[in-house]
């Protein structure tokens, strides 16, 4: 693939707005929001060329982007499925059966935590507390919280994603890039 790495016009306008929120000379502050937008624009993960591109926009060294991207757990540094299923497994969710939820999804999709289905549709990721402890067990797909999970609910939710997902779902929703 040697497609040119370039933000869409909408995304580029958004990136410029994000950068304008910080004082002159402090534009590096916008790195986390911009990496979220980049992950949404470029297939759900951050390749080295994408990070280099972000570095050039922020006028910083590539290494400054790599060290940040590798610190934060929401950034995927390897390709992932179109739907990344992030199941909370910390104490309160575990008390409500999260371990069974992870096992159920893994068995249903025939993958283990960290793996992607062969059709490239789903990646299963165990994550830490997502502030949904009162509605446990839960999982996140993109920006959406799915709560009070049961096997039946998971069946419905995954079927729906399977039928409706054509492009990767990112935390920063595509329709939130186009506003204004």
């Amino acid at each position, binding site marked *: 693939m040697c497609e040119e790495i370039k933000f869409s016009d909408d995304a580029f306008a958004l990136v410029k707005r994000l950068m304008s*929120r910080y*004082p002159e000379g*402090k534009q*590096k*502050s*916008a*790195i*986390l*929001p911009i*990496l*979220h937008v980049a992950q949404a624009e470029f297939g759900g993960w951050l390749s080295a060329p994408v990070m280099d591109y972000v570095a050039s926009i*922020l006028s910083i060294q590539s290494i*400054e982007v790599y*060290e*940040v991207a590798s*610190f*934060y*757990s*929401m*950034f995927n540094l390897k390709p992932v499925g179109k739907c990344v299923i992030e199941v909370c*497994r*910390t*104490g*309160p969710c*575990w*008390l*409500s*059966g999260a*371990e*069974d*939820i992870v*096992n*159920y999804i893994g*068995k249903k999709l025939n993958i283990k935590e960290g793996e992607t289905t062969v059709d490239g549709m789903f990646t299963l990721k165990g*994550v*830490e*507390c*997502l*502030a*949904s*402890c*009162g*509605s*446990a*067990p839960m999982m*996140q797909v993109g*920006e*959406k*919280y799915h709560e009070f999970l*049961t*096997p039946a609910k998971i069946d419905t939710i995954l079927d729906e994603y399977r039928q409706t997902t054509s492009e990767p779902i990112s*935390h*920063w*929703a595509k329709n*939130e890039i186009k506003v204004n």
Partner: protein
Amino acid sequence: MGIKLLTNNINVAGIQKLDTYQNNGGYDMFKKALSMTPDAIVEEVKKSGLRGRGGAGFPTGMKWSFLAKPEGVPRYLVCNADESEPGTFKDRYMMERIPHLLIEGMAIGSFALGCHTSYIYIRGELMYVYHILQKAIDEAYAAGFLGKNILGSGFDFDLHVHCGAGAYICGEETALIESLEGKRGNPRIKPPFPAIRGLWDCPTVVNNVETLMAVVPIIKLGGDEYAKIGIGKSTGTKLISACGHINKPGIYEIELGIPVEEFIYSDEYCGGIRNGKKLKAVVAGGSSVPVLPAELILKLANGEPRLMSYESLGEGGFATGTMMGSGGFIAMDEDTSIVKNLWTFARFYHHESCGQCSPCREGTGWMEKILHKILDGHGNISDIDLLWDIQSKIEGKTICPLGEAAAWPVASAIRHFRSEFEEYVRNPQNIIEDHHYYRLNNISQESV
């Protein structure tokens, strides 16, 4: 029904929108604050006795009064909306339901502190709430509550929302500042404190969402009246995130000082333990605070009822007490494996350690591995002592409090439930079948 200062309008239809918020008294307190002097506002917050609601419980008015004010240097108010403490979900709920209350609190706080630009740092996983806040901020600009010369007062104020990207450590205020500067979330060595050198080396105050929201009723009531609510030095109301094995998980605004027993068993709050089970243990203030067995969370060592207040929850020190923390209240029923629950916490802290300090980076990993070994039935009695030894060598030896947060759950579980660890070691075949997985009632063995 107890007194409600933050959630009184939470169920009003459309309260997320500016017009409905205003029709219910919204932004009136910002208008009132603009007619006061900044120092008078700080004084009211001091008199209110408000303490930081994020976990540390430091007096907010005092934190504000420490802010350095050198000539010609901007200063910043940053809202810590990086709510990540396991068991805590109050800020998410409030920002989602009533975002303008946070904006109003930040506007009042920024005016009081002389900040002309402020930021809300929200954890990246709450991206949908980020967009809710952004839309609310856009509304507030359009209505003239943000921007230049607000309501003709001469006060210029810009408010921005900023998202993180998945790192518990960024809830620590200096890590949050590093992250907001576009770096890895490595906590800074203090001093200098953020009040002297914070964001971009400028004087900075970092406050939790609930703390900033509470400034609005303080302006409404006045500091003295606010301080009459609650008990002793635990003034006002507190949002408690209740979860685990209770009948009614959710967010409850309580007047500080109600008995813990009432909070757990009354229908106004948690509604008792689900499925008619008995209460075994409680983590009262988010995963970092010591776990207490039922008898110690309900009653003090002297037999008096324990109350939901900073002092009463802390009564007895770590020998028999715990902490208010963030108000993340996790109840565990009689079937819960304390060791297995602890292992999920240990894994959490290992995952979230930033890696700067060796005791934390290495110790959290060791604790996770040893607990896993015990759970798998391969533990020795000496492993329990080793766990105790490791936690004692993390506490107090790290740059930031993540070290303590990782150590305290381990120490308290061994202190109060050592016999359960020993049972795993001595009779693994008896216990592992029952406790290895906590099974959800509606998931049968066959479906998994």
